[in-house]
């Protein structure tokens, strides 16, 4: 007997596609339609069989694991809570509450992804729009330092390059696509215009674009490896389009200038609004990293890198962000939520997680669960756990879990730990 669940929301990446159809047979996912390989992989490979939590590799019952996790966190002077981006907002709210009550530091995967984008938004602002506006209105798309063909596989077909919209009835033919990157990526193959920029030169190119948009003359022949004449053409296109949208990613946030690169792009986009309508949408990576931003902001005032150590929230990119805290040995316990820093952090930071008591909540084994003192195999958001996630454009969507809930959820485990936080 199989059932098909429609309008299923995929929790893998910031696209949060909500048109999946998942066929379930005998309590397992049999088929996933309309998902990309990443979405399909997530639903198909998840084994919902309840597992027992472990303490020091030993299987224990949930009560004991929770007590041990609470003991570790209560005894720590400087605990770090990190991750959050693949959990529902209901669980994220509990995580922030836990940080508040513990006086812990709390950081999300934003700090190694779009943290610099947040810094740029705080410095210069961000003209943006929802993805439906892109589909309906955008006739010029600029993908800068991002590779959606690999990271957000259905983005082109669902939201940006090919779909037909209200003012874009011919789909692809009604749009011009520009890709800017240091190498010809799979996304570049979809472009009408590919501009290859020298690594580390995005800031110069963006600054020159701003100058060209403002009608200034630029006297060098190339900037960042790109002929100025091509940039002049791009500036003209940008000024004369009907509704332009730029998408940006790690190519800007992870290279030399980091937030300064992003600020320059955001400023360019803001200035283009003197000539036409232009927006920018950061390509949020994990399924609910946008939600983590939102929750941490509405509860603390700040989107990442927060410390509650003084009893009130303080913001410290570079100070309370996880890589810095771990690399400097400033955390004496870590609670890792729905993320895998052992796989994604620089070695100097990742290694710290083996030196301090680490607690992990994750539906699947990971490189971090391997080194953790306490592991909670919780339900997987979107697959068997219900809850809310925020799409890259800020639209919140509720999951339609396709499997019955038999494991405890992140929200539940965190609530139990919160209840055991000692005052002081």
């Amino acid at each position, binding site marked *: 007997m199989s059932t098909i669940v*429609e309008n299923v929301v995929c929790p893998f990446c910031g696209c949060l596609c*909500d048109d999946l159809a998942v066929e379930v047979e005998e309590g397992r996912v049999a088929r996933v339609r309309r998902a990309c390989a990443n979405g399909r992989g997530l639903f198909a490979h998840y084994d919902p069989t309840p597992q027992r939590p472990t303490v020091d590799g030993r299987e224990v019952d949930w009560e004991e694991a929770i007590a041990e996790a609470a003991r570790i966190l209560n005894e720590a002077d400087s605990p770090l809570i990190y991750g959050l981006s693949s959990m529902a907002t209901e669980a994220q709210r509990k995580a922030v509450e836990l940080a508040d009550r513990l006086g812990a530091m709390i950081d999300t995967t934003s700090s190694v992804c779009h943290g610099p984008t947040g810094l740029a938004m*705080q410095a210069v602002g961000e003209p943006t*729009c929802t*993805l439906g506006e892109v589909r309906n209105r955008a006739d010029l798309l600029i993908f800068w330092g991002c590779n959606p063909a690999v990271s957000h596989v259905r983005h082109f077909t669902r939201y940006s390059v090919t*779909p037909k919209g209200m003012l874009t009835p011919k789909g692809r033919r009604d749009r011009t696509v520009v890709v800017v990157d240091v190498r010809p990526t799979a996304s570049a193959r979809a472009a009408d215009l590919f501009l290859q920029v020298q690594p580390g030169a995005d800031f110069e190119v963006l600054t020159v674009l701003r100058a060209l948009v403002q009608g200034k003359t630029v006297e060098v022949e190339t900037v960042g490896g790109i002929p100025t004449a091509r940039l002049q053409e791009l500036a003209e296109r940008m000024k004369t389009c*009907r509704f332009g949208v730029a998408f940006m990613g790690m190519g800007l946030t992870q290279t030399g200038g980091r937030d300064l690169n992003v600020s320059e792009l955001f400023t360019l986009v803001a200035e283009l609004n003197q000539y036409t309508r232009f927006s920018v949408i950061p390509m949020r990576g994990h399924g609910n990293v946008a939600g983590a931003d939102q929750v941490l902001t*509405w509860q603390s*005032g700040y989107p990442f890198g927060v410390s509650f150590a003084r009893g009130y929230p303080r913001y410290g990119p570079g100070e309370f962000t996880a890589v810095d805290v771990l690399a400097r040995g400033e955390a004496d316990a870590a609670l890792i939520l729905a993320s895998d820093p052992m796989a994604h952090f620089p070695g100097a930071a990742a290694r710290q997680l083996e030196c301090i008591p680490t607690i992990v909540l994750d539906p699947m084994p990971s490189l971090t669960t391997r080194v953790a003192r306490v592991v909670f195999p919780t339900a997987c958001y979107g697959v068997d756990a219900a809850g809310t996630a925020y799409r890259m454009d800020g639209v919140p969507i509720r999951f339609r879990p396709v499997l019955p809930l038999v494991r405890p959820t992140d929200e539940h485990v965190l609530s139990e730990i919160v209840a055991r936080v000692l005052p002081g």
Partner: protein
Amino acid sequence: MLGILNGRVYDPLNGLNGEVRDIWVKDGRIVPPEEVDRERAEILDATGLVVMPGGVDIHSHIAGAKVNAGRKFRPEDHRDHTRTRTAFTRSGSGYTVPTTHLTGYLYVEMGYTTVMEAATAPLVARHTHEELEDIPILDKGAFITMGNNHFIMRCIREGDRDKARDYVAWLLSAARGYAIKIVNPGGVENWKWGRNVSRLDDEVIGFGVTPRQILTTLAWINDELGLPHVPHIHGINLGQPGNARTMVETIEALEGRRAHFCHLQFFSYGGEPGKRLRSGAAEVARAVNEHPNVTVDVGQIIFGEATTMTSDGPLQYRLHRLTGNKWLNDDVEGETGGGVVPMHYRRKNLISAVQWITGMELFLLIADPWRVFLTTDHPNAGPFFAYPQVIKLLIDRDARAEVLEGLHPKAREGALLPELDREYSLYEIAIITRAGTARALGLKNKGHLGVGADADVTIYADLEDKEAMFAHPRYVIKGGEIVVHDGRLVRERPGRTLYVAPPYDPGIEAAIRDHFERTYVIASDNYPVQDEYLPHGEVVPCA
């Protein structure tokens, strides 16, 4: 059970003007004395104290996508304004854009017990409700923006008001909203083309309808659906010199249908574009006085830091260009848009000063306190915790004169304010901050202390300094429980989210599905806000 004894009660909805009365509370409601077992009731001795219903704020931006973007965007707003956690409260931060828990605490410590979130785009209503759940103690509701909604505009073009009506009912239910909100009707859609509207009969690009048609249609729909509140309108030409004329025309355009105009101050300027800003409050106040179908809130300027945040996309862009301050914009598919820009109002800045004068003149020239309410359009004109400041200025003309003295010298030229010596009474303050707002909102159990009302009660010390009096109530009771005692927050508990669920013809759903295919990139089945988001939700019936 609770007895509040011997206080001087100001309950305008029940005609009490400082009479000494006892108030009895049981199971969260005001009850007749005979229902309370005095032996077992907690007794608050309110001798010499002023007793009012809890404050009801009719317009404030406290939760949702725009507000949170404002928080994220302004860490500089939060750093020097923090609240430390306690055993039973959460920490928080923020001045013009406080975090959720802090918002609840600050409002309650100021004696307010009900606050309406002024503008939510239905596509992201889920976000608003998640945040409202994290605002403790207060009862809340959310207004749903509809003035640039594609489905509605298409119905207007097709001349099908009934279809628009059913859609609005569906939309309010789907978004779990409290009221119809209209912001710069047609102008926000035009902003997606880089344009705006400036007259009631301008055309909305791509739809061939006008702001006038949007307003009158939604006003008609509001009456048809029997909604507890009336259409809540942020009109066209906000902030423009000479827009007093537009506001008067807009009021007249309603042709007697009931409506509420929000932060009226921003729409009450005389003068002409390119010339010096002047107050046009007299003209607008006259129109309000002559149209009993209209209520307003003022949106009074508070000198100091503010954060402008509205669904009025083109306005926010203009503010960015005018001030050079950083700018957030968000266009929302098929529905609305909006933006956020930091602002600072200065006494010595002529424009800020004229804006301040304009708001004060509106308060003093609009005759009927049941139709003019105290707001700062938080945080656009100023933070909500500055309300006590405004109360003092309304009660004490000398305090006003003192502020006038400190303004840019040219601001007084041509201003009526120096001549206006009206002083509000405590009774009238109670009207413009609770009785009148509750009545305008159609909240039958709020804003008064008659039997059956929610037991939301605020007790003030009767101080000479009215700002101090209203800033720090002695006691606040919410739903029958004492939450502020001797001026300090003593209890935290969840509040309720109030919303409407007007019935609609289910036949509309097919049209809605088509609309979704065409307009949105979210499935129509995934759009409505599910029950899980309103664990403390309560439906307010329609007429």
